[in-house]
């Protein structure tokens, strides 16, 4: 198909503003999917996606459309992940497009993700078509929402379209706007092949699938290709599109979007954002914007039953086959035994992996508190990156610690500004902007450490604003902070799984809280157990568990040995489930409770 008849576009929206319903409607109206086959939300293929209403993987569907001008067009709808954890993937999907439909809920109005996504689209030079959706709702206020679109995002209200994806109202106008307003792809059909990979996944029969957008040239079966970032060379086996069924084609050329398989055995060999070119006639420069995606949230995953260690490793291997963005390496903890340190793109990503391990692989897991990576400047001169507090070198060996910072964008009704500012201050936030946008709405921009948002920030934000504030963030870089490692010691021995890196100002309060929580949870033993919270050699808080004085069953009634045996066995079972720290038996629940300790 000639580029003039192709339109590549994404749909971007805040969560629940109707992105998926609109996608489905477009599929239906263009005849790509018959109405009767359209089980709600055709594009979200993972169970989890459908359950949570969040798109996790990208998709691309080619829609044939005969426009009012009588011409046949091919509309490539590139669906983007709807969560900040996957913002790099979102940016690559957007980079594959020339236009974007910005969907705004006619009742909810502009939210933080609307704004963040709109900015991303602008950064990628996309032609934005604003769609005010759900205008059939009784609570719809399209006028107010249009004002917000102008005021907050800076897009002209008069160009916006009003629609209801649910009823089908205004859908044709949207299709027409895509054709009329969005530019066709530009590119050189005769130049060496240049195609950008914006998603990949693993198929156990065919190996790695790549979802690509052709920038220049043509890709066809038999061709020798080179992945420019990884320098891997392969031979193309098959190419095609999704309609939405998978269909093979002879080639994909300038502006086209589709899938490629090239005998790539492992999905790790394919990096999202990488450029495919011809091995024999490589392009001189790659498509811009490629980055190695690195995990931002780390946590330890341990099997509850140590016997499941191998099963957990196999399950992680299998999941990684299909998801190159998460990492794991073996880790041994005194407290929790053998497990893995795993890196994720964010909290949702972590939750997805954990839930898949539990559901698909039937594993019972113990998860340590999520943490962020830290960069440590050693006195020897170099930097090291650590993913676990246990790996922090002794204080005398490093000069400083840097931690990842984010810029958080929050939109809230003005009534909740007070509690939100308080929350942001508590989380070491620095205000960058506080602006009234439209009647009664406030836009907040804060820089704050990622570590402060990975635990319960979102829940706290929602409760501070009765659910009205919306939030999005982007990573801004690394900053030096006054960070220290707080250790918990049981009878003088540090418990590795409970060490936390935190801001120096927080250690006293948190140290006391953690020590007293641990005291509650460690059962009394034959001797007194000292519990201390310490930073280096400085003890911040101490308490102790009194020695057990009595543990004996008084009576052995009527020689009922089996009853007494049962009671002793119950004690023994309890003891077995405990982990030994020095001489002290600590129940696994104690670790978990401390790890979960709310701030």
């Amino acid at each position, binding site marked *: 198909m000639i580029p003039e008849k192709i339109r590549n576009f994404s749909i971007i929206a805040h969560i629940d503003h109707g992105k998926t319903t609109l996608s489905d409607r477009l599929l239906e109206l263009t005849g790509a999917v018959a109405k009767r086959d359209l089980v709600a939300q055709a594009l979200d293929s993972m169970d989890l996606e459908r359950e949570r209403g969040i798109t996790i993987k990208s998709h691309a569907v080619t829609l044939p459309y005969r426009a009012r001008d009588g011409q046949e067009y091919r509309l490539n709808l590139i669906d983007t992940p709807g969560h900040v954890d996957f913002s790099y993937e979102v940016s690559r999907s957007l980079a594959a497009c020339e236009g974007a439909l910005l969907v705004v809920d006619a009742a909810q109005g502009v939210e933080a993700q609307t704004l963040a996504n709109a900015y991303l689209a602008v950064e990628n030079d996309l032609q934005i078509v604003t769609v005010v959706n759900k205008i059939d709702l009784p609570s719809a206020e399209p006028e107010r929402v249009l004002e917000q679109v102008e005021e907050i995002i800076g897009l002209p209200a008069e160009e916006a379209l009003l629609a209801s994806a649910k009823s089908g109202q205004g859908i044709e106008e949207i299709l027409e706007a895509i054709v009329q307003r969005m530019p066709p792809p530009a590119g050189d059909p005769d130049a060496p092949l240049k195609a950008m990979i914006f998603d990949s996944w693993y198929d156990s029969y065919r190996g790695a699938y790549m979802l690509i957008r052709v920038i220049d040239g043509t890709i066809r079966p038999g061709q020798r290709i080179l992945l420019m970032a990884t320098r891997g060379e392969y031979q193309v086996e098959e190419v095609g599109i999704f309609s939405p069924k998978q269909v093979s084609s002879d080639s994909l050329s300038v502006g086209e979007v589709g899938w490629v398989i090239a005998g790539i055995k492992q999905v790790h060999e394919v990096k999202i954002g990488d450029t495919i070119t011809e091995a024999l006639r490589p392009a001189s420069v790659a498509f811009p914007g490629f980055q190695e995606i690195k995990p931002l949230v780390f946590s330890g995953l341990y099997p509850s039953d140590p016997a499941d260690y191998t099963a957990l490793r196999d399950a992680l291997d299998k999941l990684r086959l299909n998801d190159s963005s998460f990492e794991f390496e073996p880790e041994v903890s005194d407290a929790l035994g053998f497990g893995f340190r795993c890196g994720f793109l964010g909290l949702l990503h972590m939750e997805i992996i954990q839930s898949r391990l539990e559901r698909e692989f039937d594993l019972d897991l113990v998860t340590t508190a999520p943490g962020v990576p830290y960069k440590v400047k050693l006195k020897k001169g170099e930097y090291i990156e650590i993913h676990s507090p246990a790996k922090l070198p002794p204080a005398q060996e490093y000069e400083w610690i840097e931690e990842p910072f984010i810029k958080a964008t929050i939109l809230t009704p003005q009534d909740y500004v007070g509690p939100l500012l308080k929350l942001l201050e508590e989380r070491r936030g620095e205000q960058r902007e506080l602006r009234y946008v439209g009647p009664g709405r406030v836009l907040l921009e804060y820089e704050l450490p990622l570590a402060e948002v990975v635990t319960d920030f979102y829940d706290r934000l929602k409760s501070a604003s009765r659910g009205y504030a919306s939030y999005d963030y982007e990573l801004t870089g690394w900053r030096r902070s006054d960070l220290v490692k707080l250790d918990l010691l049981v009878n003088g021995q540090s418990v590795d799984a409970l060490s936390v890196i935190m801001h120096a100002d927080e250690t006293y309060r948190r140290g006391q809280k953690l020590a007293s929580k641990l005291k509650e949870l460690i059962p009394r033993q*034959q001797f007194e157990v000292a519990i201390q919270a310490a930073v280096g050699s400085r003890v911040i808080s101490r308490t102790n568990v009194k020695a057990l004085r*009595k543990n004996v069953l008084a009576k*052995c009634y009527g020689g009922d040995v089996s009853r007494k045996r049962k009671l002793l066995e119950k004690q023994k079972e309890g003891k077995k489930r405990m982990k030994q720290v020095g001489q002290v038996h600590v129940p696994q629940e104690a670790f978990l409770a401390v790890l979960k300790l709310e701030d």
Partner: protein
Amino acid sequence: MPPEMSIGVYIHVPFCAYRCAYCDFAVVTGQLGRVEAYLAAVQREIGAFRRHWGPQTVGSVYFGGGTPSLLEPSAVARLLEAAAGLGTLETEAEISLESNPDDLSAERLAGLRKAGVTRLTVGLQAVDDRRLEALGRPLDAALGLEALERALDSGFVSVGADLIFGSPGQISDRWPEEIDAVLAVGPPHLSAYALETTSRTRLLRAVERGALPAPDPDQAATLYEVTCERLAAAGLERYEISNFARSGHRSRHNLLYWQDRPFVGFGPSAASYFAERRWTAPRRLSEYLRTAGRAAGGADVPPCSSDRLAGEALVFGLRLAEGIDLEAIERRHGAAAVARRRPVLERGVEAGLLLGEGNRFRLSSRGVLLADEIFVDLL
């Protein structure tokens, strides 16, 4: 086991006038109408046992409950006769019966003695009206002491009193007075049990509701120490964790449990240890009545492994003040099972919970209160 070894017989009498708040035994209240059926069931059970295992020599019979003193002396006599039917009842056999003080009229006492009971234990549990109430026992402390006195005057070979300490709300300072009140009456045997809340009894539920204060294990430890001191001063020697006696008054039957010797139980929930087998009768009275005597107790039970029995011999033997002789346990259950546990015993000695001398081990005074810390590793 050697055929000449005599056995003990335990007979569980499940009837009670009421259920005490701390009780989690197999007990029925207000069902004396089922006594006849019960007696017949025990007789069937004993008959089946004898037919399967052959005649036995019986060295002790112990009526436990429940409240055996609720039975008419004639019923006790019938049960004793049935027990004798197992084979030979030794002439010097110890015949113990547990009693509730309010059953102990002079007439009932005489009847029980005449029926053949030689040893009577009186379940005072507390000699303080407030504590009796907390334990859910509708009794009068003074009347209990009087009943104990009558029992002592009724010609039994031995009489014991049972006490429970560590009840909710117990005032530590008053406990010595309770002990002294009992000592003043002068039973030659005393059992003092710390209250246990391992199962969900009425008492534990009241604690959970907040209606009663939770028993404090530290207080129980202190009360236990006070008990030991007081009774030792009065000449009652502690021969087991919770049992104290003047010389010649130790319970011969209860010693069987701790000395790894055979006993056979009849009646609902009764436990047996015989021919290297352990088994327990059905707990529910109706099920017991339906099934008793269908098959001999233990007939379809496989023998326990010698490893298990060695562990139990150690755990129960260590409850005795005299402790255990490893050589004897080795002879009986094999060297491997004992060798495997020797490090645990040695660790116990190191931790100060055990005293060891060659092949003999016993609990230290600290170890008595922390015995289960070792026992869990010995099983």
